[in-house]
């Protein structure tokens, strides 16, 4: 099973939920941090990293000896990433989406592909927990291809927990797509509610069953609960605001370690998710 943890609004507690859920279970678990722009799960998990892989994406290189300046590459590229100016062809690697169109269309066979570094993937563990982390290179604009590479590390047969980035655009979709359940984490404030509506919209487009966690549940107002009810989204857990929780989070401590009573709650959360997912699968079958 793959559970992705998303939120719409940033800073609502995705990473807190992902990391605490991951360490609370006896099952074999792998945790994938797909918030590759600002990955934080490692700060709490403190894994032993065994392997670091550099991830690249193919971008064009032009052999000017073979190029006939026919401009077909320039014409096919939707991203203005290869431009013919006078007697030269300029590839703009940072704009390239790696579709391979220019190489395919070139009648002279003048284009080959080299790699542009997207970032790295770190692989490690903490006790029995397998930990995988993507880290976008500073200055790199495109996170979805790195997120897809992180997700290629998913192992069938184990429980995979994905910490997704905030928002509702392509990086979030790349993190949630083809997961079995989306756990949405929000806070009961106008900003939290507004962004939750967008996140539920995105999850509905993908057609994935989902549930809600309300963090800092006693700050703000009741509109998030009312909205969840009106949409039929189950509230699976509430985490009250507690200055002790906030302070221990600030130091990088895990909630289930500083307050062990939470371990049982995260296990119960997982069982609820299992029930919803298996119920849904039976419904489909």
């Amino acid at each position, binding site marked *: 099973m793959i559970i992705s943890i998303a939120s719409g609004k*940033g800073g609502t507690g995705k990473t807190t939920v992902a990391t605490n859920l991951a360490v609370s279970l006896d099952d074999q678990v792998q945790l994938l941090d797909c918030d590759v722009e600002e990955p934080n799960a490692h700060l709490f998990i403190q894994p032993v990293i065994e392997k670091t892989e550099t991830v690249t994406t193919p971008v064009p290189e032009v052999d000017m000896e073979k190029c006939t300046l026919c401009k077909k590459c320039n014409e096919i590229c939707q991203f203005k990433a290869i431009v013919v100016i006078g007697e030269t062809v300029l590839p703009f690697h940072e704009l390239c989406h790696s579709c391979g169109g220019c190489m395919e269309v070139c009648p002279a066979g003048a284009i080959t592909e080299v790699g542009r570094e997207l970032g790295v993937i770190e692989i490690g563990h903490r006790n029995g927990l397998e930990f995988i982390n993507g880290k976008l290179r500073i200055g790199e604009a495109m996170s979805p291809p790195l997120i897809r590479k992180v997700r290629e590390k998913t192992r069938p047969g184990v429980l995979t927990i994905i910490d997704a980035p905030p928002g509702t655009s*392509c990086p979030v979709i790349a993190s949630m797509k083809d997961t079995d359940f989306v756990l949405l984490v929000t806070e009961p404030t106008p900003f939290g509610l507004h962004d939750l509506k967008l996140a539920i919209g995105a999850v509905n487009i993908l057609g994935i069953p989902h549930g809600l966690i309300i963090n800092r549940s006693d700050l*703000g107002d009741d509109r998030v609960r009312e909205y969840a009810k009106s949409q039929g989204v189950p509230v699976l857990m509430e985490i009250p605001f507690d200055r002790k929780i906030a302070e221990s989070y600030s130091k990088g401590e895990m909630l289930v370690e500083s307050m062990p009573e939470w371990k049982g709650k995260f296990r119960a959360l997982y069982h609820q998710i299992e029930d919803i997912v298996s119920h849904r699968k039976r419904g489909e079958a």
Partner: protein
Amino acid sequence: MKELVVISGKGGTGKTSILAAFASLAKNKVLCDADVDAADLHLITDPSIKERHDFDSGHTAIINQDKCTQCGRCRELCRWNAISEDFVVDPIACEGCGVCYYFCPEEAIDFPLNTCGEWFISDTRFGPMAHASLGIAEENSGKLVTLIRQEGRKLAEEKGLDLLITDGPPGIGCPVIASLGGATSVLIVSEPTVSGRHDMERVSELAAFFKVPAMVCVNKFDLNVEETQRIEDFARQRDIQLMGRVPFDPVFTKAMVQGKTIFEYDDQSEGARAVKKIWGDLIQKLGV
């Protein structure tokens, strides 16, 4: 004209609440919400929309089943696995590269332009505002960020205003990069947590990479004074201007629930006093 872009790296540090508080204090400015993926500033500023425009960007392939002979050329070329075995394009997986459209021997593929969001010019009780909203699950957020900043700038020029205050997106990827180019300064609103510091370090490296001068303030500083000091030490080492500290103050949430800035809610609160001091220093640094 000067443009202050407020970013944070990590989400939820209080970037938009602090920016809204600046809106109460700043004069002769245009507000710009460039966090197009999850725009929230309008929840405080309550804009009345004067102009509404579609944001058209990017294309998606659609296979015309009447013309398709299922030769498989498109599936062979598509690097996004966006075309199913029965030759239907998954619009979410489609990157909009047009390779299938270009090479289809039957010319069976359409490649229409997408409308993937909207942008607005509005009036607010704080002055004019340019804002945008990207459609759910859409792409091209960076382009919309660039567009809305240009529109904000135009608006300021038309109205003879000399400051643009822009709410930037979280993270360090495409929309953040698009929010940095040409900015006078970025203010990084951080929080004193291990995550807040880690993310602030990465986003300040991004600002340095694009050579935009950075400033930092620490929100909720009293939640962890040691982490606050670490953030400030990092800033000093990197020549990032320190703009001060804001205490953890429930007034931010209370004001937000009522759709107000903290100055409208309680201008004598600790939070309001701290933000006022930061704003005073900021306008000196910006020279407005």
